[in-house]
C-alpha cells in the first residue's frame, strides 16, 4: 500500500476536488464530443445526441461556474484559504525543483527536490503543500477556467458577439476559441491522471486528494533520515506494464488531441461540410479515442480513490470501537 505521510487536503478540499473532477470530465466528454464529433460520434450519441449533448454541456458548465465561485469565496473568507493563497505563489524553489527533476530523471541527482516530491516518506516535514507541478496546475486552471467560462457564456448567447462583430461568423470563431482553449486543460488533465495514477509508491492512485487531512496517518520522525524511506516499499507486480501503458496512452492522447485541434478547427469556417480529418483519418480517430480512454481511466481512478477513502474511514471507525491494539502505522520492529 502507500505511505500517507503528509496530509494535504482538508475535507472540503477533497470533496471539492472530486466534484470538480466529475464536472470537468463531463464537460470534456460533451465538449470534445462536439468538437471532435467526427472521431467521437459514439460519445455524441452517448451524451444525448446532437442536440442533447449541448444541453448537458451547458448544465455542466453552469455547475462549473457554481463550483468555481464557491471555491473562490471560500478562499477569500476563511483564514486557511487566505494562507493557502500564499502557498500557491511560485518561488525560486519551484524552478530549482523543476531543474532537479530533469537531473533526477537523467540520473544526475539522487532524489527529487522537496517541491517536486509526491512521496515524502520520512521527509514529510520538508514537503510544501503544493509541488511545482501542483502550483502550475492551479494557475493554469485558474486562467483557463476564467477564460472558458467567459467564452462559454458568450457563445451560449450569440447575439452579443454577432452584434459586436457585425457578422454571424464571429460566433463560430468564439466557439472554436472556446474549444481550442480547453485543449490545454484536456492535455493537462491527461498528464494529471498519469502523474497521480502511475507513481510507483502510490499506484494505482495517489490518495492524498481523497483522504482528508484529519484522518491521514502521520509519521513523526524522531531523528533525521537520509532517505525518504521509499526503499522500504514493495513495488506492485503490475506497476511496470501498467505505468508504461498509461504513459503510452497519455502521450498518444495528448499528441492526438493536439493534432486534432489543428485539423478539426472550425474557423475560418470551411467551405466543406465535412470538417477536418474526421472519420476518414483513421489514425487521428484512434488517437483521439485513446485520449478519451485516458479520461475514462481518470474518472475510474477518481471513483476508486473515493471508494478507498470510504473503506479507510470505516476501518478507522471500527478500530476506535475496539480496544487499542497495534494499528496501521505501528512499529513492526524497533524504532
Amino acid at each position, binding site marked *: *500500500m*502507500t505511505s500517507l505521510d503528509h496530509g494535504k487536503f482538508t475535507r472540503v478540499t477533497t470533496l471539492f476536488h472530486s466534484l470538480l473532477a466529475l464536472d470537468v470530465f463531463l464537460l470534456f466528454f460533451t465538449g470534445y464530443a462536439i468538437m471532435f464529433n467526427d472521431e467521437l460520434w459514439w460519445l455524441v450519441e452517448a451524451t444525448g445526441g446532437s442536440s442533447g449533448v449541448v444541453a448537458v454541456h451547458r448544465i455542466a458548465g453552469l455547475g462549473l461556474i457554481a463550483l468555481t465561485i464557491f471555491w473562490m469565496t471560500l478562499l477569500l473568507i476563511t483564514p486557511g484559504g487566505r494562507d493557502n493563497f500564499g502557498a500557491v505563489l511560485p518561488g525560486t524553489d519551484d524552478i530549482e525543483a523543476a531543474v532537479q*527533476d*530533469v537531473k*533526477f530523471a*537523467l540520473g544526475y541527482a539522487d532524489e527529487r527536490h522537496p517541491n517536486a516530491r509526491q512521496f515524502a516518506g520520512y521527509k514529510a516535514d520538508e514537503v510544501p503543500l503544493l509541488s511545482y507541478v501542483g502550483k502550475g496546475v492551479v494557475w493554469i486552471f485558474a486562467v483557463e477556467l476564467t477564460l472558458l467560462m467567459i467564452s462559454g457564456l458568450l457563445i451560449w448567447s450569440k447575439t452579443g458577439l454577432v452584434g459586436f462583430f457585425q*457578422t*454571424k*461568423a*464571429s460566433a463560430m*470563431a468564439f466557439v*472554436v*476559441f472556446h474549444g*481550442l482553449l480547453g*485543449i*490545454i486543460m484536456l*492535455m*493537462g488533465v491527461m*498528464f494529471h491522471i*498519469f502523474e497521480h495514477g*502511475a*507513481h*510507483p*509508491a502510490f499506484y494505482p492512485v495517489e490518495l492524498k486528494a481523497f483522504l482528508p487531512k484529519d484522518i491521514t496517518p502521520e*509519521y513523526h520522525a524522531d531523528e533525521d533520515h*537520509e*532517505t525518504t*524511506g521509499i*526503499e*522500504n*516499499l*514493495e*513495488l*506492485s*507486480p503490475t*506497476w511496470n506494464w501498467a*505505468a508504461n501503458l498509461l*504513459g503510452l496512452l*497519455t502521450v498518444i492522447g*495528448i*499528441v492526438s488531441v*493536439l493534432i486534432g*485541434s*489543428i485539423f478539426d*478547427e472550425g*474557423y*475560418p*469556417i470551411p*467551405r*466543406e*461540410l*465535412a470538417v477536418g480529418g474526421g472519420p*476518414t483519418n483513421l489514425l487521428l480517430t484512434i488517437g483521439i479515442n485513446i485520449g478519451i480512454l485516458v479520461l475514462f481511466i481518470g474518472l475510474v481512478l477518481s471513483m476508486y480513490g473515493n471508494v478507498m477513502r470510504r473503506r479507510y474511514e470505516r476501518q478507522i471507525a471500527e478500530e476506535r470501537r475496539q480496544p487499542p491494539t497495534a494499528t*496501521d*502505522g*505501528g*512499529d*513492526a*520492529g524497533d*524504532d
Partner: protein
Amino acid sequence: MSGTSDDRDRDPDRPPDDREGGTPHSDAADQRDREAGTDPSSRSEREPVREMPHKERPRNYTDPDSRLTDRLAVLISALVGLIVTGLAYWWAQSQAIFTEELYRVQPTVEERGIGADWVQGNTDPALDAMIAIIHAADALMGLGILVIVFLHWAAFRRLASQMRQPGETRRSDAVAADGGAEADGERGGDAG
C-alpha cells in the same frame, strides 16, 4: 513476420518427402486439441485415427503439385490483403472526392449577396489573430506538457528501481507496515 516464416519453413522448395513434417503438423494438432478443450491424456488414443486419411502425403501441403506450404500461402495471402487494404485506404483518404465538397453552397459574390457574411466573418483580422494565438498556445503548452509527462515517466521509473522489487525476499521477517520502519533493513540502514 518474414523472420518467423524463414525459421519455420526453412526450405519451402524442398520436396514434401524430404520434410520431417512433424512440427507444423503437431502444432496444428495441439492447437485443435486446445480449442476443443480435449484432455491431453486422451490424445494418444486419437492420434492414429487422425493421421489415417492423410497418410500418403504430409498435411502441410494442401495441393501435392504445389511447392507452397499452407503456412507460406497464408502469409503471402495476408501480405497481399494488407497491401491492397493499405492502397485502398490511401486512395480513399487522399484521392477520392467527397460529395460533401461538391454540394457545398459556395460564396457567389465578393462584396454582397449569398455568402458575403461568410466572407466578411471569415476574414476578420481580430478573430483570425485570436485563433492563431490560441493555436500557438495549444502547441506550446502541448509540447511543455509532453516534456513533463516524459520527465515524470523517467522519474517514476527511477523511483520504482529504488523500491523493493515484487517478489524480492524480505530483508526481515517483521512486516513493515505502511510508513513503518523495518527492524533490520539492509539498504535503509538509517531507517531503523
